[in-house]
C-alpha cells in the first residue's frame, strides 16, 4: 500500500468523527448557546456506548455485529442526555456558558474514569481502568478501491465512517432546508424575532444543544473504536476543542467546516507517516502530534478577522431586553 493511500485512509478515520462533532457544535452555537463541552459530551457518549458494547458482547458473542451498531445508539443517548445538563445550566440557570462548558468537561472526565474503575471492580470483578472494545471491522469496496489515490477513500473503511456521512447529510438538510433548521439559526442571530413569531426560544435551544450531545456521542464512540479500541482516561486528548476550532474556521457553516476537518485529519496522518518514512525514533512522534494544534493556531490567526459568529452567541435570552 502506498504512503499516500495510508495517509488518506487514516486521515479519513480521524476527519469524519471530528466533522460530526463539529456539526454538533454548529447546531448548538447557531442556536446561540456557546458549546465548549463537546469534549466532555463525546467522552460521556463514548463511555455509555463502550459500556453498552461490552455488556452486549457478552450477550451476543464476540462475532456478532449487533453490539457495534447498538453502541452508537447508546452513545447518542448518553451524549444527548449529558448535553441536557449543559443546556439546563445555560438556559434554565442562565449561567456563564463558557464556564458551564468547562465544568461539563471536568465532570465528564471525573465521572467516567471513576465509573470505569468502580464498575470494572464491582460488577465485572476485575480491577482495570479501561473498557475494552473489540477491534472494529473494516471493509474495502471491491472494484472502486483499485483506482489509484481516489480508491483509498474506499479502502479499509470503518463502518462508522458510512454512518457519519449519512447522518451528516441528514443534519445538513435539517439545518438548512427545514423550518426547524431556520428557527435554530434564527435563535442564534435574533432570538427576539423568533419569540415575536410565536416560537419558544428556550425549547429550540434545548433541542439544538441536545443535538450537539447526540452528534458528539457518535464522534466519541468512533474515536474509541478507531484510535484505541478501548475507553480509558486516555480518551480525553482535546479533540473536542479541535472540532470547535474547525467550526470557527468553517465560519459556523457545515461544508467549510468539513474542509477544516480534512486539513486536520490529513495533517495528522501525514505527520505520522513522515516520522515513519524518515525512520526517526518514536520520541519524534511527539513533535508530529503538535501539528493539528499548531495548525489550528496559525489558521485562527489568519482567518479570525473574517469570521462572523452568530450575533446572539453566548448571550442569555432575556425577553424583556431589547
Amino acid at each position: 500500500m502506498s504512503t499516500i493511500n495510508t495517509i488518506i485512509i487514516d486521515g479519513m478515520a480521524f476527519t469524519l468523527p471530528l466533522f460530526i462533532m463539529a456539526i454538533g457544535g454548529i447546531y448548538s452555537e447557531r442556536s446561540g448557546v456557546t458549546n465548549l463541552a463537546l469534549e466532555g459530551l463525546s467522552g460521556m457518549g463514548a463511555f455509555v456506548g463502550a459500556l453498552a458494547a461490552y455488556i452486549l458482547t457478552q450477550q451476543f458473542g464476540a462475532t456478532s455485529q449487533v453490539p457495534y451498531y447498538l453502541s452508537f445508539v447508546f452513545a447518542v443517548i448518553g451524549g444527548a442526555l449529558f448535553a441536557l445538563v449543559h443546556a439546563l445550566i445555560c438556559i434554565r440557570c442562565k449561567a456563564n456558558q463558557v464556564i458551564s462548558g468547562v465544568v461539563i468537561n471536568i465532570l465528564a472526565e471525573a465521572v467516567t474514569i471513576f465509573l470505569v474503575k468502580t464498575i470494572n471492580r464491582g460488577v465485572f470483578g476485575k480491577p482495570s481502568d479501561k473498557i475494552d472494545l473489540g477491534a472494529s471491522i473494516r471493509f474495502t469496496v471491491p472494484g472502486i478501491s483499485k483506482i489509484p489515490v481516489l480508491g483509498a477513500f474506499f479502502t479499509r473503511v470503518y463502518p462508522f465512517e458510512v454512518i457519519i456521512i449519512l447522518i451528516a447529510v441528514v443534519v445538513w438538510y435539517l439545518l438548512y432546508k427545514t423550518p426547524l433548521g431556520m428557527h435554530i439559526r434564527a435563535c442564534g442571530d435574533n432570538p427576539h424575532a423568533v419569540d415575536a413569531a410565536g416560537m419558544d426560544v428556550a425549547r429550540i435551544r434545548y433541542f439544538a444543544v441536545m443535538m450537539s450531545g447526540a452528534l458528539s456521542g457518535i464522534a466519541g464512540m468512533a474515536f474509541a473504536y478507531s484510535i484505541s479500541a478501548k475507553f480509558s482516561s486516555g480518551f480525553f486528548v482535546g479533540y473536542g476543542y479541535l472540532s470547535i476550532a474547525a467550526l470557527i474556521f468553517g465560519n459556523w457553516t457545515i461544508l467549510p467546516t468539513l474542509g477544516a476537518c480534512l486539513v486536520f485529519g490529513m495533517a495528522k496522518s501525514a505527520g505520522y507517516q513522515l516520522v515513519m518514512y524518515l525512520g526517526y525514533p518514536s520520541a519524534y512522534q511527539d513533535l508530529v502530534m503538535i501539528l493539528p494544534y499548531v495548525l489550528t493556531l496559525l489558521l485562527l490567526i489568519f482567518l479570525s478577522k473574517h469570521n462572523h459568529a452568530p450575533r446572539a452567541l453566548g448571550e442569555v435570552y432575556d425577553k424583556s431586553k431589547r
Partner: protein
Amino acid sequence: MKNNKVLRNAVISILIGLLAGAVIILILGKNPLNAYYNLLQGCGLLPKAKYASGRGMATDLLSYIDFLTPMLFAALAVAVAMKAGLFNIGVAGQMLGAGFMATVLVGYSALPAGLAKPLVLLVGIAVGGAMGALVGFLKYRFNINEVVSTIMFNYIVSYVVSFFINTRYVDAVSRQSKVISAASRLTLQDVMIGGYKFNIPLGFIVAIIAVFVVKFVMDRTVLGFELKAVGLNNTAARYAGIGVGRSIVLSMLISGALAGLAGVTYYLGYFASIQPRTLVSTGYDAIAVCLVGNSDPLGILLSTLFLQIISKGSTYMSSQSGLESEIASVITAVILLSTTISILYAEIIDRIRSRRADRKGGETA
C-alpha cells in the same frame, strides 16, 4: 450582604458535593463518615491509628501544605484572568512550560541553594508570564478566543516538553525527567526536627504573600480597577479611556506568571521531576477552586485549604476504605457543578423566604 450570599452559595455548593459523594459511597456499600474521616487523617488534620517511624501528624500536615501550594497559585492565576473577563484554562500548560524551563536552566545546574531557589521562582514567573502574555496578545490582536488558544498551547507544550525529556533528560529507570538538585528544590526534604521528619514547603510562604499582593492590586490600585472595568464591560472601559488591549495582555501576563509559580512549586517543590506527556489536573481543578472562592484571593485561600483536603486525603482514604481515589475528583466536579447552578438554589431560598414573609404578614393583619 453580598458577601454573605457568596459565602452561603459556596457553603451550599460544598455541602451538595459532599452529600453527592456520600450517596455514591453509600451505594458502593461503604461508610461515608469513615471515608471523610480518612480524608482528614490523610492531611494530618486528625491523628491516624499508626505512623511509620519518624513520621507523625505534623509530617502529614506539612505534606498537605506542600501539596496545596501549587493549587493556591494556580487558582489565583485563574482569578486574575477572570477579573478581566478572560478564562485562562491554559494554567496546566503554563505550569509545565515554567516547570520544565526552571528544571533545565536551574534544576540541573550546580548553583548553591541561596542563588538557585530565587532563580527558580524568577524563571517560573518569566516563562509563565511570557506564555500568558502571548495568549493575551493573540486575543487582543487577532481576536482569538483565549479558551481555544490556551488549550492548543496546553497540548503543544505537553508534547514539546515530552519530546525534549525523552530525547535528552530522561531517567532510564523512572521514565521521567532526571531528578533536580536538592539546592534548587523549593521544598526542603526530610528535615529532622525533634525526631520527626518534615518536608518544609518554602513556596507556601511565597503563595501567602501572593494572595495579599493580588488582593491589594485588585482592590486598591489603578491597574486592578482597569482590569475589572475591562472584565465587566469592555466597551464602557474603552470609552472611559482605558487601554483595553493593554489590560488584556497585562492580566494574562500576571495570570501566566502566577501559573508559572504554580508550575515551579509543583515540579520543583512537591515533586522533583516531570512526567512526560502528562498535563497535571491542577490547571482544571484550579477553576473549581477559583469559582468556589468567588475569584476573591481570600476566598480562594479558604477554598484551596478545603478542596485540597479532598484531593490530598483521597490516597489515604483509598488505601483505608478500598474506594477508588478518583472519587475525589468526582466530588470536586460536583461542587463545581453546584457553584455554576447556584442561581437555582438562590431562587429556591428566596421563594421560601418570601413565602415565610407572606405568612408573617398575614398573621399581623
